[in-house]
């Protein structure tokens, strides 16, 4: 599941400050002890595969977007004018988004991805609509918006993100050497 911030609404009555969480150990409460900070977020529970085509040198348009069950299987498939096809995982897309430059912005993929459905996975708010201009043509936009768009938005879950007032982690570390099934 890809969590991202759709809108930030701070409903906290009492602010709580949490010390840095170590990999193993206890989350310490440094501030006051009652209540915790909450924030509403939207979680996308479906994954997305976006296909792009380089329609003219350096200009990319979305040709298809498909919802998939597994959010970790999200990817971008780019068909370049040269005939080369690139398949990028979300990790790679995000890296390029952050690094900018070469194979992302100069290829003009960034804009199309950000203003299509994929934009929701890259940090754009779900309340901001998809831009038809990111798609190859109006019928592609209509088709994607009516099928995939509905699937993605209807399956998105609004959830309250909150900070635990205390907590522990690091249990069971170093125990991955055998199966615990049977």
């Amino acid at each position, binding site marked *: *599941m890809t*969590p991202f*911030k759709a809108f930030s609404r701070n409903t906290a009555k009492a602010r709580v400050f*949490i010390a840095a*969480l170590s*990999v*193993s150990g206890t*989350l310490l409460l440094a501030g006051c002890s009652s209540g*915790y900070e909450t*924030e509403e*977020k939207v*979680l996308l*529970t479906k994954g997305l595969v976006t296909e792009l085509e380089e329609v003219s040198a350096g200009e990319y348009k979305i040709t298809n977007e498909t919802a998939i*069950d*597994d959010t*970790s299987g999200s990817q971008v498939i780019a068909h370049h004018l040269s005939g080369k096809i690139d398949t990028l995982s979300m990790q790679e897309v995000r890296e390029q988004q952050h690094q900018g430059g070469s194979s992302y912005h100069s290829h003009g993929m960034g804009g199309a991805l950000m203003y299509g459905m994929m934009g929701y996975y890259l940090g754009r708010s779900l309340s901001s609509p998809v831009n038809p201009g990111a798609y190859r043509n109006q019928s592609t936009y209509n088709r994607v918006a009516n099928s995939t768009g509905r699937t993605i938005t209807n*399956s998105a*879950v609004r*959830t*309250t*993100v*909150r*900070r*635990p*007032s*205390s*907590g*522990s*982690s*690091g*249990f*069971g*570390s170093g*125990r*991955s*050497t*055998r*199966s*615990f*099934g*049977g």
Partner: protein
Amino acid sequence: MVPAVLAQADQHVLSVDKRILFTADLPTSHWKKLGLQWFVGKDMDYLTDEMLGVWPEEIQAYKEASNELYELYERAAQHIIDKRLWHRVGIPANAVRLIEHTWENRHQHVHLYGRFDLAGVIDGKPAKLIEFNADTATVMPETTVVQQEQLKAANMAMDQQFNQLDLYLSAQFRRLAERNPNKVPQILLSTLGHEEDNLNADVIARAAVHAGFGVRHTPLEKVIFSPEDGIFVQVGRDDYLPFDFWFKLIPWEFIAFEEPALMDILIKIVLNDLAVIVNPAYTMLFQSKGMMAILWELFPNHPLLLKTTVSAQDFRGEAYVQKVIFGREGENINILDEHNRYMGFNKGDFGNFPSIFQAFEELPSDKNGEYYQAGIYWSGQPAALSFRRRDGYIIDTDSEFISHYILEA
């Protein structure tokens, strides 16, 4: 596709050898494409190009056995809880409260699934319980995916296999959501990190998604447990996602014995209804092989049970199997014949637990000396069948997985 010899065969005494159907050997690349390369990796001789034929009446016998055994387990669990027989089933003091609470509230704390391992049936003998993997049963990717792929490769129809685990797991997840109406249907799935366990958790995730749950995988060590606020995953510098449901492919006895601090937090989380954990804590009781001695006491000579006690003295002149109450994957098992000579033994990681002693029951076998153990999944109802075989009496990690197909008369 069914071998001609079967057409006129006498159904009731068909040997294992005559049931075997050779299928096309599916290439490694095929399993890779399905994300199952782990099962065909280096040094893995686990999947085969054979399938075992099972008559429809035998499928029925497996289903009835699992339903009836589940009822026996429920009755025995109530008995143990009423009489507080915790020491007899090896339940530590720190687990008692959570077992009692989840059992009393089992309408809410749904038992997602388990697997009964059985002897008998395909050799014409009555079904006998070898053990019940009630908490963290695995072999699910093989049962749900590998079996279906082999059936397809043999050009058989989907209904020529008893394989509804995906469907019934999903139904159990829907039940879990309905019975916890105030909880957000998002489930966190955790393992201790072993690839085999992760692949099994994927099967659970798939079923949860079909039932409308959002899913997220996070290994146990990264999960944050808060006694006041519940179960969380940190997703950003200051962002913590709460989860109302947690699936753990981590045995309850591991948590109770090896991570008692976590056990204490989980007790608070569940008792304060901050999260529902599957499988629920009472499956630790079901999982204990100590239960099988209690079952034999409560239902002596029940046709589905093997004589089971807590003393080797009860088996003078009889072959028996010694197992530790929280052993897994065929580890820490000794098999002795009627003259007390070893017929088989496995060492393992679980030698510190107390033992039970179970009458030795020979599994159905073929001409090559391979012994076949049936695994019948139970997920609110009988859900799927698959087999493992081994050229020895103990079905362990060196066994092979065997798909099945339903024979036609």
